[in-house]
């Protein structure tokens, strides 16, 4: 398959691996922020191709995993309002809230529908004018512009029964928060698709102020190995900077149209991250002038404060401080069929990935 097979070529992967082994001298820790990267590393067995000096840790880049329990509980409360249709991307329906999950609520009679694009939610709203359609907006700068586009479209078409519960988040604050917290990281493998939207300027502070290497990577094994090599070379030569490995998709300035849509629809707000707490200016709330589409403003639900499940160390895993095997629940009480923590639910969650790929 074009654009895939050429980036999975064994010879090429091995040659980058050999070069990396020759270059790497210092012991370094690199964090892959994106869940898609975590999955690629495990899926293609990249750990076995790295020199002992290079250690990879997984970061907080799986949108399902970082969505707070409070958000899930809110979604659940909306799903119980008569006449409400919840639309959501698939992974979210199995995430356990404080007491139940959307999947279980659906079995109890709530109207919860899986969509593959937010624009499908808009169609559902148009086709069910007597109902209220609430889309659960999760994801980073990659998926947020789609939600923005849907809200703008709804405004244009005067669709009054479409609402968004936004848990959209942005990447840079959490990356900085991890560094500020003292998590030992020498460089970031930065998320390719987020950067395709934002451009690379969002990482400048990490390189210039924090002195960390940042390489924006694609998701195939050749991409990832190259990105790791580029980071290692930066660190070995003491020249941390922002570089793009994923040049076939990412440009320095990003996607201006998508950026403008984000700007038009959302504003930054302090936001809760599962296991990490509240991070200032890390979430995307819907602007006041578009509040008629904001589920939080239009529906009045009371959701009690939630607590993390007992024994679950998702928070430390999302910080890269611990790996799933350090968790007493992992593979025992917490499995993909019956997940306790969010990192086990999404296919891109660190725990689910470990469960599947660590033979």
């Amino acid at each position, binding site marked *: 398959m074009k654009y895939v097979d050429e980036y999975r070529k064994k010879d090429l992967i091995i040659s980058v691996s050999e070069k990396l082994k020759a270059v790497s001298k210092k012991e370094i820790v690199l964090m892959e922020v994106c869940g*898609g990267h975590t999955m690629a590393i495990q*899926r293609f*067995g990249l750990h076995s191709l790295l020199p002992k000096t290079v250690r990879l840790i997984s970061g907080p880049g799986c949108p399902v995993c970082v969505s707070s329990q409070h958000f899930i509980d809110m979604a659940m409360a909306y799903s119980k309002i008569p006449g409400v249709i919840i639309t959501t991307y*698939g992974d979210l*329906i199995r995430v356990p809230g404080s007491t139940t999950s959307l999947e279980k609520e659906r*079995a109890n009679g709530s109207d919860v529908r899986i969509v*593959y694009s937010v624009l499908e939610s808009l169609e559902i709203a148009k086709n069910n004018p007597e109902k209220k359609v609430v889309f659960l907006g999760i994801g980073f700068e990659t998926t947020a512009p789609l939600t923005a586009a849907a809200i703008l479209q709804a405004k244009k078409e005067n669709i009054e029964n479409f609402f968004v519960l936004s848990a959209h988040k942005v990447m840079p604050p959490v990356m900085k928060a991890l560094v500020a917290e003292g998590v030992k990281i020498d460089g970031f493998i930065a998320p390719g698709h987020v950067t395709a939207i934002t451009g690379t300027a969002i990482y400048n502070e990490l390189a210039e102020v924090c002195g960390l290497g940042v390489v924006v990577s694609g998701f195939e094994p050749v991409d990832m190995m190259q990105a790791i090599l580029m980071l290692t070379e930066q660190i070995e030569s003491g020249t941390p900077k922002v570089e793009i490995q994923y040049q076939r998709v990412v440009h320095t300035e990003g996607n201006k149209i998508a950026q403008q849509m984000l700007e038009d629809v959302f504003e930054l707000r302090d936001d809760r991250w599962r296991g990490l707490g509240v991070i200032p200016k890390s979430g995307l709330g819907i602007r006041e002038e578009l509040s008629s589409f904001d589920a939080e403003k239009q529906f009045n639900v009371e959701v009690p404060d939630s607590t993390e499940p007992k024994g679950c160390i998702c928070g430390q895993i999302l910080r890269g401080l611990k790996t799933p095997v350090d968790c007493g629940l992992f593979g025992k009480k917490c*499995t993909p069929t019956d997940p306790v923590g969010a990192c086990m639910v999404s296919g891109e969650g660190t725990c689910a990935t470990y*469960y599947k790929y660590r033979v």
Partner: protein
Amino acid sequence: MNNQEAKIMLGHGSGGKLMHSLIEDIFIKHFSNSILKEQTDSAILQVGSSEIAFTTDSFVIDPLFFPGGNIGKLAVCGTVNDLAVSGAEPLYLSVSFIIEEGFPISELEIIVESLAAEAKKAGVLIVTGDTKVVNKGKCDKLFINTAGIGRITKKDSLVSKGLDIRAGDVIIVNGTIGDHGMAVMNARESFNFKTNVESDCASLNHMIREVLDKSSAKFMRDPTRGGVATVLNELVGKTKLGIEIEESSLPINPGVKAMCELLGFDPLHIANEGKVLIVAGEKEGPDILEILKKNELGKKSTIIGRVVSDHPGKVVLKNETGGRRIIDSLSGDQLPRIC
């Protein structure tokens, strides 16, 4: 599971782990008998001095028409294949229709025509049936149930049990995997992928008969819901051996591969309706491949992996770069990637 509160979720019907626990905890618990306990695709029954195979299957597919077939054709293939992989020669089918009020008779007739045509192709007679019509909204357009019986010999009946599986045995599939599930998905969801993915929906009984008559297979199963991964996991669960699959040897249509890449699906979890997985001794493997390849439905047959004594109870996929991953049964519904 607290049965007082628990409710049926869609995942309970997906062919994966949830469904298996439902079968164990509810159905087997109350129906338990020595024949059912075998949990093979068909029940093998002693009638007088001979044995017959008996099976049933219900079809609730949405949409009713999809590239490569429709619910009628599928209703025959599904039951015929369940009998065939049990080692039986399918003979007679029953067909029951549950129809929603308002369903166009012209569409029903097209479906019935396909049903008749596929039955003829498979060499089975439809000998009894039932019709129920329910109020509008009480079922989704049309559901079909078929049941079938077939003739079986003692020797062939062993093929559904897989009693003699050993390390070193090869695992064969008769062509590309994941076509049915992806064709239906593409027809159902509004992706508008411009691919030529078609369902592989086909009756395999004639091809399987040739394999059974001319060679000896140790185990057969049709990888329908839950896909190849689910069958292989059942097998390692039963044998206490491991299975190793080579990623590069998996036959996958480019269109299916592309859809799976985009949506985050694993082709090993996607349903097939015209495929059979065969486990055979290392020596018999090549003979079986040859027999399969001569058949129109087996041209792309290939060995996808082996039974191993390592990692008992686990199915492991090896890729070219040295990556190894566990191929688990599907847990709940197949969920799409979101970022």
